[in-house]
């Protein structure tokens, strides 16, 4: 990134930074990507021929009763933390833009911590579903569509975390001054995007029966 990105006029046809246009275009394409995954989940919702099922108990031919797979309390905490991480990162960006390094680094650390909890929650959830509830990727339509949708979202959160950690490392070295705050802003836009995707996934997968 140029050291004078905000100080000097940009010679672009729009007058806007091309990198910001690029990240918004990428986010637009990601909307379509997740729309197909959400469609896939909705199309196959309620069409599993065998259990375990998301919200209902399932009795196997041998008489074994399988409990509903989804558990709301833990994922609600994860959802709240992901929402708060969006709040934390705008405070970090605000700090960065104002040259407040303590706020920039501190809130960025809080964002990374909240995001890490969310990914940890998802790993714990997947592990529990697989080992305790018997839901594998190919067990039924619910398993396939659920793991595909939430797994892709989780991988996006993980990539976002790696991006944020790299910005943090540069920030700690003093390489993200206010005039380079767009570096953090682009990571923040991506982070907000994974947050808004979860805002849709959470009710669609966990709350709607």
């Amino acid at each position, binding site marked *: 990134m140029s050291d004078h990105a*905000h100080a000097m*006029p*940009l010679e672009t046809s*729009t*007058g*806007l*930074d091309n990198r*910001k*246009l690029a990240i*918004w*275009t990428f*986010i*637009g*394409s990601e*909307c*379509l990507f*997740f*729309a*197909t995954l*959400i*469609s*896939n989940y*909705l*199309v196959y919702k309620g069409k599993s021929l065998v259990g375990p099922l998301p919200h209902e108990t399932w009795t196997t031919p041998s008489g074994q009763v399988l409990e509903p797979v989804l558990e*709301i309390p833990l994922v*609600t905490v994860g*959802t*709240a933390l992901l*929402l*708060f991480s*969006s*709040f934390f*990162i*705008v*405070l970090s*960006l*605000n700090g960065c*833009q104002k040259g407040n390094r303590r706020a920039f680094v501190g809130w960025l650390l809080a964002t990374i911590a909240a995001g890490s909890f969310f990914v940890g929650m998802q790993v714990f959830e997947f592990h529990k579903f697989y080992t305790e509830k018997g839901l594998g990727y190919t067990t039924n339509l619910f398993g396939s569509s659920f793991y595909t949708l939430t797994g892709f979202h989780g991988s996006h959160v993980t990539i976002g975390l790696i991006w944020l950690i790299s910005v943090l490392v540069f920030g700690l070295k003093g390489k993200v001054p206010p005039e380079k705050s767009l570096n953090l802003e682009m990571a*923040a*836009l991506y982070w*907000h*995007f994974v*947050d*808004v995707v979860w*805002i*849709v996934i*959470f*009710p669609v997968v966990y*709350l*709607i029966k």
Partner: protein
Amino acid sequence: MDAPAAAHEHSHPGPWVYTKIAVVLFILTFLEVALYDITDKGRPALVAQIFGPIFIETLLFLSAIKFALVAMFYMHLKQDHKLFSGLLVFPLTIAAVVVLALITLFAYLHHLHPALK
């Protein structure tokens, strides 16, 4: 960056606005989960009766509000250049059409082809 574009880029809201948005987001999420719990258990009966039939619509409405708040205030679309809004809204419109078309196809028009059943 030209002056008008630069002005758009630097009028982001402050921490107080961000905090208010965070509180609203938290309340809306609480409402979503509370509605789920109420309709699931059927208690209180009056609230369950009111929201039971429109549970899905209510959840989608609350999610749409949360989505819009994050996009407008945290992603700064309310303050930034309109081109950025277009880059989100246009694909989102296509995405909504894709979701609705696929649901319509598989839920209501599946008799048209055996593979859709």
